[in-house]
């Protein structure tokens, strides 16, 4: 009995329950038609949210005020960089991925540089950076109509037994992220900083280095995500990352990570990512208009966060 209760106390469980409920509602509506295909589609789309969500989760875990608002601009620029470097040829896929990774990591490093040098809140630092990145992307990606190399486009759409390979790789990546968070010095340091930055510093945690690493990691994940998105949707686009600002923060919060920092949850990011994608699928299946879909999405996010409730004030 106690095991059931401890399981129910896990905040991330609810995101999976939500995803399941939404999926069942949709399947009931279609009369069982397309139930499997829906899971496949949800998995392949959720991957992109989960990758940036994990990055955002590490950043948010650093404590109140830490959030990366530059992710959409970062994703947009990295998608253009990846497509330009690959230049449509299969032999350049790895180089292009590395370029997107480097581009994202550089943006993350610049974010932290601004936070550190100007001693400004991360929200403003990443916001200013995103203004500039956005312009760079508009100027750099203007008229860019390079298709991804066929091998890369196939890879991002590759499925084995109805399960996208990209989703399997992302599951492995998230297991790695969970291990890093709970079992490695890096992850424990992130949690310690989020719980009390001063205590962490007094305990000998390299606060500056860990924060730098975290912002760079989040940027790099944004970069990789941009490249994969460009492969999946067959082309780069300035607006390709726009929806990932809300999505990356929403999956972190819905997934049971504390916005106040110091408490992170990797499985919840998957549950919340699937929940969001399936929710959109359900609303599309019900045939509601774009306006109603947006209103319901917003209300459900507000409803979920209200139901989950905030942390009791520490002071």
């Amino acid at each position, binding site marked *: 009995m106690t095991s059931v209760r401890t399981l129910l106390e896990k905040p991330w469980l609810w995101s999976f329950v939500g995803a399941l409920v939404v999926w069942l509602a949709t399947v009931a509506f279609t009369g069982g038609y397309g139930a499997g295909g829906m899971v496949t589609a949800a998995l392949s789309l959720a991957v992109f949210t989960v990758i940036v969500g994990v990055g955002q989760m590490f950043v948010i875990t650093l404590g109140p005020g830490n959030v990366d608002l530059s992710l959409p601009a970062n994703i947009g620029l990295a998608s253009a960089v990846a497509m330009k470097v690959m230049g449509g040829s299969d032999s350049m896929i790895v180089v292009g991925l590395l370029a997107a990774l480097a581009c994202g990591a550089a943006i993350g490093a610049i974010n932290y540089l601004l936070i550190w040098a100007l001693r400004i809140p991360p929200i403003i630092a990443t916001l200013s950076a995103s203004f*500039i990145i956005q312009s760079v992307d508009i100027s750099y990606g203007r008229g860019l109509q390079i298709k991804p190399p066929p091998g890369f486009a196939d890879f991002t759409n590759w499925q084995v037994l109805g399960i996208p390979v990209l989703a399997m790789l992302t599951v492995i990546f998230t297991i790695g992220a969970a291990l890093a968070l709970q079992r490695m010095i890096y992850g424990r340091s992130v949690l310690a900083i989020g719980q009390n930055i001063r205590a962490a510093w007094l305990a000998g945690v390299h606060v500056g280095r860990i924060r730098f690493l975290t912002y760079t990691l989040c940027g790099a994940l944004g970069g990789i995500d941009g490249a994969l998105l460009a492969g999946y949707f067959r082309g780069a686009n300035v607006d390709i990352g726009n929806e990932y600002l809300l999505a990356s923060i929403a999956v972190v919060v819905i997934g049971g990570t504390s916005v106040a920092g110091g408490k992170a949850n990797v499985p919840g990011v998957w549950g919340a990512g699937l929940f969001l994608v399936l929710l959109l699928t359900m609303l599309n299946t019900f045939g509601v208009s774009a306006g109603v879909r947006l209103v*319901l*999405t917003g209300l459900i996010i507000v409803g979920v*966060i209200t139901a989950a409730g905030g942390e009791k004030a520490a002071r």
Partner: protein
Amino acid sequence: MTAIAPGTLPKSSPRGSAARARLLRGLLPALSLALVLIAIAWLNPRAISYFGFNLMLNLAIPIALATIAQMFVIAGNELDLSIGTFVGFVGCVTATWLRDAPLLGILVLLGSIGVYALLGALIHLRNLPSIVVTLGMSFVWQGLAILVLPKPGGKAPDWLLSIMSFKPPYIPFPILAALIIAAVVHFGLMRTSYGVILRGSGGNAAALRRAGWSLLKTKIVLFALTGLFGVLSGMALIGITTSADANIGNGYTLLSIAGVILGGGEFVGGRVSPVGAVLGALTLALAASPLLTFMHIPPDWQVAANGAILIIVLAARVLISRRER
């Protein structure tokens, strides 16, 4: 909240230089606006005229109003990421219902201010992160805007058009309006006793609660004021553009935050400045498009100019603050 360490208390001898640094810091928003104006005057002297200002500051009034709206939530240590889509929603209502069925339009706009007040109550009672709640709400406002006005169009009410095209003698209307907005909000927030309580709810909430003030009420009032100025911003915007589009306000979320910070506001501690916020909004409005056009920089870099100004001003602030301690 922020305990003052004994070492940072102003000592008697360097008090003069600390006061000077604080003054310089307070003047920073005005200085940055002056710099942008000087650059424009140097590049194109003819722009500094009644007609030129009317043209260059065309969109400054809605931006200033949205910035003031954002300033109220920031005064309470919260952040509103939905103000841009809210301005768009108000714009759509203004260009449709407010013209065709004024009573319905007024009720809807008042109702939306009520929604803001409820959000404030919800955020306070459930202790929710305002970033997430308002991000969710940004979807709601955008969806409602699309439902009200599926295709770009509509028309502003005539009375609104005539207000926004008002041409006072000598002083260009945008500057006059900015002065009035700054003066009214400055008086309300900085000079009245309840204004002090509102700012105090961001500065030291625990102290206010022990003094017997309702934090729920301050949060509701701050959010309702944000809603009110958001409504004014959306109406002013439609009065200028004459027709609406569901996405018309989307850029205002980031612009308004940038304006508050440029104007000397801080995210925590209830440190905001209405005059500074208006100056910040004017700086952004001028720097983004007129300055770049005169410098022959392609419009691609407009957004970057906002980012660069933000970074430069914050860097200047760091240099000044270093002298402050």
